[in-house]
């Protein structure tokens, strides 16, 4: 059986200082910059919906079928950026293949909420 990969999509939700990012599709060289942008948006204190300082950013990768090293780089850069602001950035949910990749690259602990 052949499945068509989901078209890439990304959504940033703002609930005061609590920000969440939901990603759908495949994160690779071409879509990783959009993930990086979304993280940047989520980390901005003032958004259209909120003027409260950011407290946390959670990323939902449960609908991501594939993520490559460009995607990991965007997540890790986002995590460092968040840390420098004193904000916790974490991957709260991941598809089986993303979970395998995070484990294989030794990054699951670092990117998990904890």
């Amino acid at each position, binding site marked *: *059986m*052949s*499945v*068509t*990969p989901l078209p890439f999509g990304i959504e940033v939700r703002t609930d005061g200082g609590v920000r969440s990012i939901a990603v759908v599709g*495949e994160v*690779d*060289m071409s879509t990783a910059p959009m993930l990086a942008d979304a993280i940047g948006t989520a980390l901005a204190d003032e958004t259209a919906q909120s003027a409260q300082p950011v407290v946390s950013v959670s990323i939902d990768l449960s609908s991501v*079928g*594939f993520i*490559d*090293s*460009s995607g*990991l*780089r965007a997540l*890790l*850069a986002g995590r*460092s950026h968040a840390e420098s602001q004193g904000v916790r950035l974490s991957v709260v949910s991941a598809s089986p*293949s993303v979970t*395998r*990749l995070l484990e*294989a*690259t*030794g*990054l699951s*602990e*670092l990117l998990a909420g904890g």
Partner: protein
Amino acid sequence: MSPTPSERALSSLTHRVVLVDDDAADRLLFVDSVRHADAGLRVTAVPGLDELGELMSAAEPPRCVVLDLGLSGLGGLDTLNVVLERHPDVAIVVLTGWGDEEAGAAAVARGAQDYLVKGRASGEVIVRSIRFAIERKRYQVAVVALESSRLREAEQARLERALLAVPAVERNDLRVDIRYQAARPGLVSGDFCDVVECADGSVRAVIGDVSGHGSDEAALGVALRSAWRALVLAGLDGAATIDALDSLIRKERVAGDEFATICDLSLTADLGAVTVRSAGHPQPVLAGMGVLVDSSLSTPAGVDLPGDRARTGTTHPLPDRWELVLFSDGLFEVRDRSTGLMLDVCAVEPAVLQLADSAHLDPDTLIAAFADRTDEGWRDDVAVVLISRIS
């Protein structure tokens, strides 16, 4: 004299041309004589370099500038230098004063395509000079582009050679096979690998991958590979080597967020055991046995290691004969045509086992096995190292 076919072809093209001359009467005369001689040249005239700049930033800028070296203000070759610097793609014909042909020759030496002596050239001569200047400039630009693409290719080839060292293994009971395949010809990213025999007969191997794609990443891969060899030959063990590479990448990275996955192997001198240390890199597969797991698997070099972690590595005993495959993620990151999904690291072990069973395991057949599973082609560079104990 009738025009040659190539001259006729040249004269049929329409080009915009601009004269820069601060003498209003000379401008009128020039525009008039060019228009009479060649209706295909749409000629305008401006008094100075500021007006030229405005014209050059228009949607369809002139292809040729006829520049009076006698402009007041800067004057002479300084005027030419300004035009060359601001408008590197435009053809230039300079006008020199009567008896000042030396200045014309000097202008051509600096980068103008031709020169004319002011007031001495007929309309036909001016037009010919302009048309040939445009063609000459077009040719020169093409030559420069070709040369820079040759340089780029040579640079990529150098990087590719530097990313995979010639294995330094003397012992005749081991065979080392390395393959590197760029995702697109002439473009390498940062996969690197090496195999070295130490003074005591033990053998070390490494494979790694710098995140991202491009020459900066490839250069970082080269730095990591040569540092790895130097550290191993200096006697550092696997853990200390990866820690040193971790600090190296933090100092050398260009964008600031690059990291590298690295897998370092230490084989004992009797080849009876191997210690695997992986910093986020896919772990090697032992044909017939499976994945050689590092239970201390750590984060990639350049990424913070969570608190209490140490890169202790995991030691595995080895049989009398064995074949060990190291690889980068480019090998399996392909879209499987039967499912439409991207393959992941789990696909490597069965592929290695199947090839080993059919006695056709080598880097080329392994790469071909993955190429056969996809219609899309490669997304990333592929590095494969096969180390075999042959006696």
